[in-house]
C-alpha cells in the first residue's frame, strides 16, 4: 500500500512540477520538456493505480492506457522537435527566442 502511495504521490508531484514549469518558463523547448515530465507523472500515477496487492494480478486497463499514452506522447514530442528544428534551421537561432 505504501509503495502504491509513494508511486502515485510522486506521479502527481511530477505532474504538478511539469505544469509549473510549463507555465513559468517561456522557452518553447523547456515547455516541451515540461510536457514530458507531466506525461511521466500521469503515467506514473496510472501504473500505481493498477497495483492490486502482491497476490492479485495488476489491473490491465491502466497498463494499456499507459502504453497508448506513451506512443502518443512520443509522436507529439517528435513533431514538436521537428517544428523546433525547422525554426532553428530557418533562422540560425534556437527555437526558444520566440
Amino acid at each position, binding site marked *: 500500500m505504501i509503495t502504491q502511495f509513494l508511486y*502515485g504521490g510522486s506521479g502527481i508531484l511530477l*505532474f504538478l512540477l*511539469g*505544469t509549473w514549469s*510549463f507555465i513559468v518558463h517561456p522557452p*518553447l523547448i523547456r*515547455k*516541451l520538456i515540461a*510536457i514530458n515530465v*507531466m*506525461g511521466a*507523472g*500521469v503515467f506514473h*500515477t*496510472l501504473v500505481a*493505480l493498477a497495483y492490486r496487492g502482491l497476490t492479485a494480478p495488476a*489491473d490491465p*486497463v*491502466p497498463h494499456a*492506457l499507459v502504453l*497508448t*499514452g506513451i506512443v*502518443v*506522447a512520443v*509522436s*507529439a514530442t517528435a*513533431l*514538436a522537435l521537428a*517544428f*523546433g528544428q*525547422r*525554426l532553428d534551421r*530557418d*533562422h540560425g537561432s534556437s*527555437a526558444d527566442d*520566440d
Partner: protein
Amino acid sequence: MMIDLLALAVAFPLLGAVVVTATPSHARGLGLASAVLTTLTSLVLSLGVWRDGSVRSDFGGWGAPLGIGLQADGLSVAMLVMSNLVALAVSVYAGSYFSATARRHFWPLWLLLWSALNGLFLATDLFNLYVTLELLGLSAAALGALSGTRAAVAANLRYLLVGLLGSMTYLMGVALLYSRYGMLDIGLLAEVIEPGLVAWTAMALMFSGLFLKAALFPMHFWLPPAHANAPAPVSAALSALVVKAAFYLVLRLWLDLFDPVLNASVANVLGLLGAGAVIWGSWRALRAERLKLLAAYSTVAQMGYLFIAFPLLVATPPGLARDNLLAAVVLLAMTHGFAKAGFFLAAGLVQKTAGHDRINELGGAAQALPAATFAIGLAGVALIGLPPSGTFLAKWIMIEQAMIQGLWWWVVVIMLGTLLAAAYIFRVLGHAFNREPTPYRFVNDARTEIPALLLAFISAFVLGLIAQPLWTLLDQGVLG
C-alpha cells in the same frame, strides 16, 4: 448495418490517410474519394439516428467496461453532420488550393484529422476521447504549419505545446476518475459518480484541459496566430471544427457525466469567461489589420457565446425551455462551423488574389472576386447573428431565456457582442464598394468559390430557417 456505419465513419478517413500516404501521386483523387465516402457514411448514419434513435456498437463483442465502444446519439450526430459537410467542402476547396508538393503533405494529415474528429464525436469512453483529442491536436498542428513560414511554424509549435498541456491535464483527470471508480465508460461512470473531492478535482482538471483546447478566454492566446498563419483550408478546419470538438466534449461531459457534480457557480465562471471572450475577441477582431487575424479573433468571440449558454442552462429548470436552449447552443455551434469555414475559405481566395490580407488594401481583390466577397458577406450575416441565420434563432432563444430568468447581464453581453461583430464584419465589407472595374462574372473559379459560397449560404439561410430537424435529432437521447 448501423454498427458497421459507426466504425466506417472513423475507418474510411483513416484508411484514406494510409492510402494517400502510400500513393502520393494520386493524393488528390484518392483523398477526395475517401472524403466523399466518409461524408456519405456519416450522413447515412445520421439519418438512421434521426429516424430510429441512438445507436451503439462494441467492438469485438467485448462490451463496456473492457472493450472499445462507439455511440451515436442526437448531439454527436448533429456535430458529425456539420463537421463532415464542412470537411467535404474544405476537401474540394483544398483539391484546387494547394500546389502539387503541398498536396502530398496535406492529404494524409487532413484525413487523419478527419478520422480523429469523427472518432471524437462517436467515442464513449474517456480514454478513447483522450486518444482522439491527442490525434486531433497533432494533425491540426502539423497541418497548420504546412505553409512552412517561420510565423506559421512558431505559432503552431506553440499551439501543439498548449494542446499537449491541455490533453495531459485532461488525462490526469481521467486517471483520477479511474482511481476512484475503476471504469472509463461515460455511461457507466455517470451511474456511480457522486459529488466529492475526487469528482471535483477530476472535473476541474478535465475541463481546464478542454478549455485550453477550446481557446476559452483567457486561454485563447495561442489561437489567433495559429489560425491566422495556417493555409486557408486548414484555418477553416481549425476554426470551424477543431476548437468546436473541444467544446463538444465539454458539453458532452457536462450533460452526461458531471451533471450531479455541477452547480451554478461553476456555470457562472464559464459564463463569465465566455463573456470575456465575446467582448475581448470581438474587440480585437475589430482592431485587427489582417483579414485572417480578424476571422481568428472572431472565433475566440464566437466560442464565448457557446460558454455563455452554461449559466443559462443551469438556471433553466428541465422542460421545453431547457431543451430549446440546448438545441440553440448546438445550433449556434453548427452555424458557426459553417460560417467560419466559409469565411476562411473565401478569405483565402481574396488573399491569394491580392497577395496579402491587409484589410485596408483589399478593395480591388474583393471586387474582382464577387463570389468570395459574397461568401464573406453571407458568413458575416451568420457571425453577427442577423436573420435568417441559425445564429439569429439561437441568440433569440438564449436572450429570451435569459430575460425569463431575469439574467439581464447576459443579454447585455450578447447584444454588445452582436454590435461589435456587425462593426468588424462591415469594416471588411465596406472595402468591397470602390470604383474598381466591374467584374466580368460572378464565379471565376468554381472549385474553390462554390464550396465557400455554399458553406456561407448554409450558415446564413438554411440552418436558421430549417432548424426543426435539429430538434427532432436532439430528441434522440439528449433532450429530456
